[in-house]
C-alpha cells in the first residue's frame, strides 16, 4: 500500500498498453502484452489481492501470452497497425 509504488506501476501500465497496441510486429505486441500482465499482477499483489494476482500471473501472463504467441506463429507476424 505504498502509493508512490502504486503510481509508478500505473504509469508503466499505460505505457505498456500503448506500446503493445502500437507495435507492428504481432510477436512483439504479444510479448509486451505479457509484460503488461505481469505489471498488473504486481499491482494487484501490492493492493492486497493476492489470489487475483496469483491467477493473473498464471493466466494473464502465462497461458494468455502462450496461446497468443501460438496463434501468431500459426498465422502471421505482420500487422498493418
Amino acid at each position, binding site marked *: *500500500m505504498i502509493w508512490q509504488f502504486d503510481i509508478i506501476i500505473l504509469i508503466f501500465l499505460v505505457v505498456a498498453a500503448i506500446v503493445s497496441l502500437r507495435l507492428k510486429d504481432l510477436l512483439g505486441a504479444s510479448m509486451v502484452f505479457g509484460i503488461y500482465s505481469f505489471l498488473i499482477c504486481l499491482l494487484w499483489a501490492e493492493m492486497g489481492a*493476492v*489470489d487475483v*494476482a*496469483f*491467477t493473473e500471473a*498464471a*493466466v494473464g501472463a*502465462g*497461458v494468455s501470452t*502462450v*496461446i497468443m504467441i*501460438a*496463434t501468431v*506463429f*500459426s498465422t502471421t507476424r505482420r500487422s498493418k497497425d
Partner: protein
Amino acid sequence: MKVFGLIAVFVVGLLLLSATQDFPSWGDPRSAASDGEVSSFYIEKTESVTKVPNMVTAVLADFRGYDTMFETVVIFIAGIGIIAVLRNFEGTDSPSDHDNDDDGAGLLARFTCSLILPFIQIFALYVVAHGHHSPGGGFQGGVMFGASYILLALAFGLSKAKQLFSERRTMIFAVIGIFIYVGWGVLCLLLGKEFLNYSVLDSILPGDSMMARSHSMLVVEIGVAFTVTAIMFSMYSNLSTRGRLSKGL
C-alpha cells in the same frame, strides 16, 4: 471509423470519470462496499462458519460456489468451443507428421525441462491442496498443472505430451472435473438440503458441519483443477497446431 471510435471512447470515458467524483476515496475502509454488511460478514464470520482462514477461497467455493461452478463451465465451454471451431479431424492420424518437425526443442531445453517439471507439478498440487490457508486454489493450481504439460509439449514435442495426455483423455478429465463439482452439489441435494449446501455432508465426512464445509471446498477445488488442467492443455494444443494436433510449435 477512427473519428467515430474516438468520440465514442471519449464519451464513455467522461461518463465514467464524472461518476468517480462521488466515489469514496481509494482505500477508504468506511466505503459502502468495504464496510457493508455483506463484506463485514465475510471477513468476520468466514472462519467461524467454515474454518477456512483464506476468505477468498471460502467465498469462492462456498458462499458463491454457484458462481464458481459456472466459472468452471465457462472454461469447459472454451475448451469444447475451440475444438468445435478449429479442430480439423482429417489427417490427424497420418504417421508421417509425427516423425517430422515434431522433435521439440534442443538438448539443453529438454534437460532443463525434465529437471523442473516435477517441481512445477508438485507445486501445482500444493497450490490446489493448500488453497485454504494461502493464496491459490483449484483454478491457479490447475493452470499450473496444465502449464507443465504445455512446457512438456514445447520441450519434447506435442506428440510426446499427447502420449501422456491424449485428446480423448483431456476430454474425459475435463468432464470428470465438472462432474466432481456438480456431483458434490447434487449429493447435498440428495441428502435433503439445497444444492451445494455442504453442511449436510457431515454425515459422510469426518468432523462437524463446519469441517464438512471445509472439506467440501477441497473437493470442489480438486474438481476445478481437473477441468482447468485438461482444458488449458487442450487449448494450447489446438491453437498451436491450427487444430491438427500434430506438428506443434
